[in-house]
């Protein structure tokens, strides 16, 4: 309990009774408002106190005139609390760098990061080349496990997304097409969009969201738990042991997922065309006439490259994770963001390449 009055013009804060967390919380503001300039803290009638009560008294400032609690127990609590506070030193301010070093530090950090990326890329290319020459050295059982996790388990999601995208594209394009009486060309529009662009792109986004993040989290946790160091000290190459099976699985599974996305998208478009009054035969004829094998194979080849890059980025994010549980989350985020940004950039490059090649 807090009462305030004055003695010879000096404010006096009189605390009494039990000074616990509830009492400290309710009197904190009033006590701090009254504790201005010169003042007296009279705690003689405090009967019991916990750390929160001690914080209330100790937090009132050094300039006060003190009347310590008369009872033994609260006096001890207050003494112990002050002893703890005396051992707290303010965090040392970081030593400022000279101005030239301040300018150079971000570049040095970036260069260090770039060097690490190049080193990891080099290790992966070397290990990948060695495995390409001796494919039996690849841990095929691990590849199959990752094919299942990245592929089989992603099928339902790809089917759902594919059908929905096909339906949405067909409906959206039917509005302007109808104005020109060109609804019959919707299958070409949707089919070519899906085969060349949207099928691989959407499957890649599914892979980046589901699989790259899982790779990063799994490898990041292994790094935090020193399992990667253990693999290295057993004389094994973490890249060949951990990265290649995952990257190989991502690369193999991507064309299949892209194909699933494309085919189910075409099915979704077919459903919309049926509701618009066009029979499946008409849709199939339009597709046969306009959709070439090159459109499909080009899309699948692109998907394989996307899989390679997304798998690689997921693994690199995991193996470059820092320490602690937060690092694993950061690695997963980096894998998804890095994967999606990279695949959009790559997609742009493929668009230019296909344009040049006249595909």
């Amino acid at each position, binding site marked *: 309990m807090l009462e305030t009055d004055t003695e010879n013009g000096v404010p006096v804060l009189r605390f009494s009774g039990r000074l616990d*967390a*509830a009492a*400290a*919380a*309710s009197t*904190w*503001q009033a006590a701090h408002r009254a504790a201005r300039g010169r003042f007296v803290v009279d705690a003689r009638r405090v009967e019991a106190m*916990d*750390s*929160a009560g*001690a*914080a*209330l008294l*100790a*937090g009132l400032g050094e300039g006060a005139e003190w009347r310590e609690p008369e009872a033994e127990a609260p006096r*001890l609590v207050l003494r*112990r*609390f*002050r*002893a*703890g*506070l*005396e*051992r*707290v*030193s303010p*965090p040392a301010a970081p030593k400022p760098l000279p101005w030239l070093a301040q300018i150079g530090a971000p570049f040095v950090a970036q260069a260090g990061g770039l060097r690490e990326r190049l080193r990891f890329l080099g290790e992966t290319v070397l290990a990948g080349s060695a495995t390409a020459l001796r494919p039996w050295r690849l841990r095929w059982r691990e590849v199959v496990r990752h094919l299942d996790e990245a592929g089989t388990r992603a099928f339902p999601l790809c089917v759902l997304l594919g059908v929905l995208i096909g339906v949405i594209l067909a409906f959206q394009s039917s509005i302007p097409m109808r104005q020109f009486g060109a609804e019959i060309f919707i299958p070409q529009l949707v089919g070519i969009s899906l085969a060349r662009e949207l099928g691989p792109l959407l499957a890649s986004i599914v892979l980046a969201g589901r699989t790259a993040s899982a790779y990063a989290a799994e490898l990041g946790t292994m790094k935090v738990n020193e399992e990667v160091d253990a693999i290295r000290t057993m004389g094994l190459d973490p890249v060949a042991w951990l990265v290649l099976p995952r990257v190989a699985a991502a690369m193999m599974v991507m064309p299949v997922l892209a194909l699933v996305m494309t085919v189910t998208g075409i099915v979704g478009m077919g459903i919309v065309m049926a509701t618009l009054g066009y029979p499946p035969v008409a849709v199939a004829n339009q597709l046969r006439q306009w959709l070439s094998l090159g459109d499909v194979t080009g899309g699948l080849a692109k998907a394989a490259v996307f899989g390679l890059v997304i798998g690689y980025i997921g693994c690199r994010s995991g193996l470059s994770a*820092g*320490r*602690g*549980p*937060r*690092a694993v989350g950061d690695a997963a985020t980096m894998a998804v963001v890095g994967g999606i940004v990279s695949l959009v950039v790559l997609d742009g490059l493929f668009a230019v390449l296909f344009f040049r090649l006249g595909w």
Partner: protein
Amino acid sequence: MTEAVIRAEDVAMRFGTNTVFQDVSFEVRRGEIFVILGGSGCGKSTLLKLLIGLMPPSAGRIAVLEEEIARLAGQARRDLLRRIGVMWQSGALLGSLNLLENVMLPIEAHTALPDDARALVAGSKLGLVGLGDATTRLPAEISGGMVKRAGIARAMALDPEILFLDEPSAGLDPITSAGLDELILSLARETGTTFVVVTHELQSILAIGDRCIMLDKEARGMIAEGDPKRLKEESTHPTVRAFFHREAL
């Protein structure tokens, strides 16, 4: 006789058909350092989980501060949990918060104190465990011994009546471990807090334990109770003797 703050009566714990222990009965008295000891796999940590109410016992009754913790729910459970503190074997500090924020966490959850009051309390607790110069560091940036100390500071944040420590010395070097034992002894002496310590570190048991119980995997229950120093000297039970004299059975 000093008041009992924990009473376990005929406690048993089973997972399916596997009985971890049964017929475990003991009392923990206010202000003492009570040690639960035993070999690996004997159920020490399981018993700790029963004592702090994370799991109900398969049989028997556990009363903590006169309340049957496994049966409590809602506000009554929160009120009881406010009166106990737990330090986990791994420290269990939140990795995204610095040490001061970690210690402030239970204060924020259980009191209406303003930010500066919470920071003062947390700072004082960290100062008491010797981490006054590491308040702004993240758990990933400090050593294993410091993590354990920070775990104790967080467990003490609300001035609990009982502090449960799970394997406080595990994984620490002898010097750090001895320092932690001294810290526990000084806290028990200065604050009057009751400590329940789960450990199998022999030197710690002898250094800090006022009383102990020993669990045994083979016996599926308690095989000894008393002052650890006396048990070491006087017990005739072969497992107890082997444990205290570091002998293979």
